[in-house]
């Protein structure tokens, strides 16, 4: 069976007041390296609206997480 590469994985994220991630999978965020938005398929019944953050955790790990603005919930994703 076919599967997509780099599917988003549900992530446990605690937000700051401005909506940026404060903790990712229970690890504190040390720095936010980049932030961007992806708006796509707005002409279909399944539009995509995501707010991406590339963050560095206190352990030194680099992670890309996004908030799904359409359905809610945080996800981590490789290859973003």
């Amino acid at each position, binding site marked *: *069976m*076919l*599967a*997509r*590469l*780099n*599917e*988003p*994985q*549900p992530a*446990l994220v605690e937000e700051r007041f401005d909506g940026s991630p404060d903790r990712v999978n229970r690890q504190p965020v040390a720095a936010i390296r980049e932030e961007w938005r*992806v708006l*796509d398929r707005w002409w279909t019944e399944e539009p*995509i609206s995501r707010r991406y953050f590339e963050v560095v955790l206190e352990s030194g790990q680099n992670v890309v997480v996004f908030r*799904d603005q359409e*359905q*809610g*919930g*945080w*996800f981590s*994703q*490789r*290859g*973003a």
Partner: protein
Amino acid sequence: MIACILVPGFELQAALRSRPRLGLRPAALAPEPGTEPLLGPVTAAAEAAGVRPGMRLGEALALCPSIALVERDPHGVEEEWEGILKRLEDSGFAIESVEPGCLYFDTRGVERLYGGVKPALKRALASVGASWNASAGAADRRFAALAAAAIARPDQAVVVDDGRSKEFLAPLPLSLLPLEQPRREELGHLGVKKIGQLAGLPGSAVAERLGPDGRRAWSLARNEDTADAGLNDIQPGFNDTRVTARPPATDLAEWLEFPEAVANELTLRRALTALLDRILARPERGGREIRKVALSARLVGGGSWRRTATLREPSAERGVLRAALGPKLAELPAPVLSLGIELLTLAEAEGRQLALVRPEGEELETRLRDGLRQVRARAGAGAVATVVEVAPWSRIPEQRALLVPRD
């Protein structure tokens, strides 16, 4: 349809084969040495005394002081399970064994042979044997089939009609879902006690609260494809609607009985060398190299021990096999009465010529194929996939490439 055969408490049942009287008394499978003191499966008499599988040993002893602890017998478990698998294969079932006590097969190949799904399941249960208290279930997906088998009574088959799996699953308890106990308790505190209640929740909320495992349980509860939940990263190649039948077993084993119990590592290493000589000389091997091998021992005072090794490269050299298996002898927990070796998977090629020049073309292809077989032997079918770019320009990462299994 996918069918599931379930033998509850298989490890305990297998360990009790040599001591059937214990089956009528309160008894439980002893905790694994070196791990948390948690009980394995328990007998009906122990359950009646309030002892539950997974309970702490101290708590179980407080509840039922007369409980007997049955030593683990991994070799006996493998032997009995292999016997069941072979009987099923002899009856025409192409089976995928998940673990001792649980297997799946596709009913499409046998429905016409036995005159329908239910007669095929009855035949499968007869092949397993009435003494194992096995139950069977069939549905359009694996989890629904597993749930059907779990609620069926011993020697009974439950068939869930096509398209009715979701309704079938709805009233069943959450305990059937592969969820950790704290997650299940968390759901219980929120009033979610049935599979149907979980299925009714929004997926993103479940994922946010319970993480990937919760999301997977939610997909299973809705009888949906778990691949949609992005779980291929966790379980590559897992497919709810397909069964990958195991390749035919090689059935090559050699045993060495000792006149008295042996604990000396030097003696055991010599015994291993003798066993390797004997098994490598077996004509059934047909000159093929060995990819996966198991070392087993019967321990003094009952019980057994078993370790498997997958070789980095298939080999039929005594030194390579000795190097792979020798260190495992140091893990033996007790003196042994007999030592055995079993060839689990053999390579296809008969010998290999060392290369004078860099391999290319057909030779390279053959080696690549062999390497992929090696990975499959280690990680299971569906573990090898090719990345195919479909929309590399897409701004949405998951739409750029697909994983295509190379089975």
